[in-house]
């Protein structure tokens, strides 16, 4: 018996809105839905309680509300138990509840041994359905969120800082255009009543998908659904997402701080997501160009392997959060996506060269496409590598849920079916249709920002030197081309701001 049939049996027996292995499109949008993946003999049970509300739903002036309100559920007490008491009860079970907030959805995840399922679930249920909204929890989590924005993100993690600046730049004036944790000013203004209102307005049945996988006992999903069915029916009105403003030429945002290394992220909004047929072809091209941390990647080969500039260089056809190992995380689906390139920190002295090099490689991809040989190699790679994506219970459940979000029965199975039918021409057509090398937003963290701006605007040559005195001739010859590769950078398109000025208010800081 496979899981699909197994859960269908449940569905028939229980007569509830249980959906497993099938899209839940026909379900009443104001009522709960579920995603089940029973694996009868597995001793573990994974929960993914997904809320179709994310940081994009934060009202203006209250950016960071969703993160703080949901954080209070995952890390706060219930009406009857303090968070301290919950922590003590979780401890012998090695239980914890994780929360991830993205733009349009948020998810509470946990995996528990079935020995402890009933004890754990009773606590978990009350955390989500009967939260305590205690002042002391609120104060603690608000302070943590402010410290994250003001100190940790800006001072301690430049790679993430760079990606977040890119997000602010890509989605200026758009519901996606603030950090998921908000901004210092907006988070400071949040009150416990704001969180209670958020809960009342958003913890509605139609917003919630109950994801369950593993060796849970018969009747358990029905119990969970009956508990969550006590929430009011209804749903948060769908957000209207305008199209993000397209970049006009090369637009730079430089965060200035004292640092020996420069972090770079750049990209542009895409008019395509995993839901579109063309995605498969575009995804293949981007895998060729920069699939995460694989030697296959062209950027990785040219910037890291040939020239030793940094630790790695990657490209993505959609928003990417790293899950286990190097695989994509799940439950961060979006209706609007973006293309991005991530250049890991490199010596400040080589920053201008590498910006040129990455943009030149992007131009070559757009203009020349990929070769038949690379096309075949990338296809073989993706057909095999994606077999590793869904190994743990949580990964399998996450992929099942995401497949349904984007309208597939099983996205990874779809990959196996669609890729063999694609041609090199399909891929190169998608590249020309969706990618470009001229209208791009670039986020940089570096020191001496004014010098970088002047170098960019004057289009000064940017030669580099190597520790290896015997670099291959073809590399040195190509360097001569790269170091003068023309970038049309207009002075008004380079915005410089002190690192400490970011995330004080939602959106980009004033220059």
């Amino acid at each position, binding site marked *: 018996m496979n899981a699909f049939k197994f859960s269908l049996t449940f569905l028939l027996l229980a007569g509830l809105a249980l959906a497993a292995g099938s899209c839940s499109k026909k379900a009443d949008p104001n009522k709960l839905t579920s995603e089940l993946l029973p*694996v009868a003999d597995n001793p573990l049970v994974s929960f993914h309680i997904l809320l179709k509300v994310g940081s994009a739903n934060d009202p203006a002036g209250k950016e960071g509300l969703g993160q703080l309100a949901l954080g209070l559920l995952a890390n706060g007490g219930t009406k009857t138990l303090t968070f301290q008491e919950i922590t003590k009860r*979780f*401890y012998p079970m090695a239980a914890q509840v994780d929360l991830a907030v993205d733009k349009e959805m948020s998810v509470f995840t946990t995996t528990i041994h*079935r020995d402890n399922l009933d004890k754990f679930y009773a606590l978990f249920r009350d955390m989500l359905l009967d939260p305590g909204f205690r002042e*002391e929890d609120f104060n603690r989590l608000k302070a943590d969120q402010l410290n994250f924005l003001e100190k940790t993100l800006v001072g*301690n993690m430049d790679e993430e800082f760079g990606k977040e600046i890119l997000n602010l730049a890509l989605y200026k004036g758009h519901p996606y255009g603030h950090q998921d944790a908000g901004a210092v000013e907006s988070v400071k203004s949040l009150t416990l009543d704001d969180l209670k209102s958020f809960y009342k307005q958003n913890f509605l049945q139609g917003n919630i998908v109950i994801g369950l996988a593993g060796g849970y006992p018969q009747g358990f999903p029905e119990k969970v659904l009956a508990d969550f069915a006590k929430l009011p029916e209804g749903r948060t009105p769908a957000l209207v997402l305008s199209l993000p403003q397209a970049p006009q030429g090369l637009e730079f945002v430089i965060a200035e*701080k004292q640092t020996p290394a420069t972090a770079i992220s750049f990209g542009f909004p895409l008019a395509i997501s995993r839901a579109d047929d063309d995605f498969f072809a575009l995804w293949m091209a981007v895998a060729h160009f920069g699939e995460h941390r694989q030697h296959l990647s062209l950027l990785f080969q040219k910037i890291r392997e040939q020239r030793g500039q940094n630790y790695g260089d990657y490209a993505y056809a959609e928003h990417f959060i790293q899950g286990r190992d190097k695989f994509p995380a799940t439950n961060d689906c979006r209706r609007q996506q973006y293309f991005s390139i991530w250049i*890991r920190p490199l010596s400040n002295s080589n920053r201008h060269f590498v910006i040129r090099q990455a943009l030149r490689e992007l131009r070559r991809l757009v203009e020349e496409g990929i070769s038949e040989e690379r096309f075949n190699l990338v296809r073989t790679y993706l057909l095999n590598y994606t*077999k590793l994506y869904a190994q743990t219970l949580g990964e399998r459940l996450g992929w099942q849920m995401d497949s349904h979000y984007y309208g597939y029965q099983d996205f990874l199975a779809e990959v196996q079916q669609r890729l063999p039918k694609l041609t090199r021409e399909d891929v190169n057509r998608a590249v020309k249709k969706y990618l470009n090398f001229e209208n791009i937003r670039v986020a940089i963290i570096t020191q001496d920002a004014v010098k970088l701006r002047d170098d960019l605007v004057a289009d000064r040559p940017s030669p580099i030197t190597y520790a290896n005195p015997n670099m291959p001739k073809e590399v040195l010859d190509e360097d001569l081309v790269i170091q003068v590769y023309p970038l049309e950078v207009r002075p008004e398109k380079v915005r410089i701001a002190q690192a400490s000025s970011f995330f004080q208010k939602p959106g980009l800081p004033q220059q």
Partner: protein
Amino acid sequence: MLRVFALTAALLLLLGTPLGLRSQGSKVFPYDTKVEVLANGLKVVCVPLSNPNIIAYYTIVRSGSRNEVEPGKSGFAHFFEHMMFKGTKAVPRPVYDDYLTRLGAGTNGFTSDDHTVYFVVFAGRDNLEEVVKTEADRFINLYYDEETIKTEASVIEGEYYASVSSPERRLAELLRDTAYEKHSYKHTTLGFLKDIQDMPNQYQYSLLYKKRFYAPDNSILLVVGDFDQARLMELVKKYYSPWQSSNYQLVTPAEPPQHKAKRARLAWPSKTLARLAIGFHGPAFSDGKIDKAALDLLAEVAFSNSSPIYQKLVIEEQKCQDLFASFPDRRDPSLLTIGAVIKKDEDLPAVEKAVWQELERLKTELVSAELLSDIKSNLKYSLASGLDTSDGVAGTLFFYISLTADPGSLNKLFDLYDKVTPADIRDMAKKYFILPNSTTVTLTGGQAK
């Protein structure tokens, strides 16, 4: 869906050892392990699981930054890990990359204090021979020239830069450098920056390093997943037998006892939360002696998120964003570290004082039997939650194999945990948590530019 359902069902049928922890006497690591040793000393640990698709193939080289005992060579184990991807004369780098790409494997290497580990996680038992053959080839016949090493050295510098904005990294470096006098645990796996910058000049040393440590008598294969053991051993013998033993005996300098408390501080150039780390010299990993096991439990008693001091400083008073104890298992005596992330610089002395008060309390008060039972339960369920895939099993087991070369060490350790008494915990607190044995490092931030 079918795949993993079949895995778990078949696992239970074949092994008859469910992961449930209720039954008395069941082992926390429930799978059968089979061990064979080749004539050249290469040990092979097999954990056959009837996963219909995935095989985790790990090569454990029992050499890490612990082996960097010579001056100027810090970071070399990690550097050499990078060189292991450079190909051989038979399979040059582009061919090797092409093979990995076609295989679509999850593959990488990582280095720690005591080991460097290479893994290839792939789908399909039909690919097993290709993997065994190619992995054996690169371990036996690795080839690179002086130019290659110079370019790769700058990648390592880039890796150092990637972590340069992390206060934890800098604080860990300072703690080790201050706490250790002689032992190679004095430096982190990445190494000192000055040694990283000298790596382009270390071609000859890299050849010596490989000869000493990348040898079958210093390496262990761990293969977990869907394969036939007899077939695997046939392939391993065929491809790994030419690998020459090294017989090199590493002598790590003994760390002298510390008789005087040490302190150091680090100023961070921008705004940051303050950090405190107090390190105590402790024992090496052992699956037979009680000290390390008792200290593992003690660390949980004192500093887990359910402990009184965590509840006080993190949840109630909210002076700290985080508070933890860390005592990783190491082959040689290493540091038990208590760490705190503190919201206001001015609270740093109060947090340090509270940590010491807690340690003093443990020297006199006995832990309740109930709490000890909760901790043992936590450790067992934490372990069990990672054992549901081939990669999860390999990713758990390799660590203990690297420590002792014995896959049975994991269960022996948990047997030892069961024997730890409240008196053992009190005695360990008295023995190790004394001021002259401590090294305290702090980090505070300035104004962001």
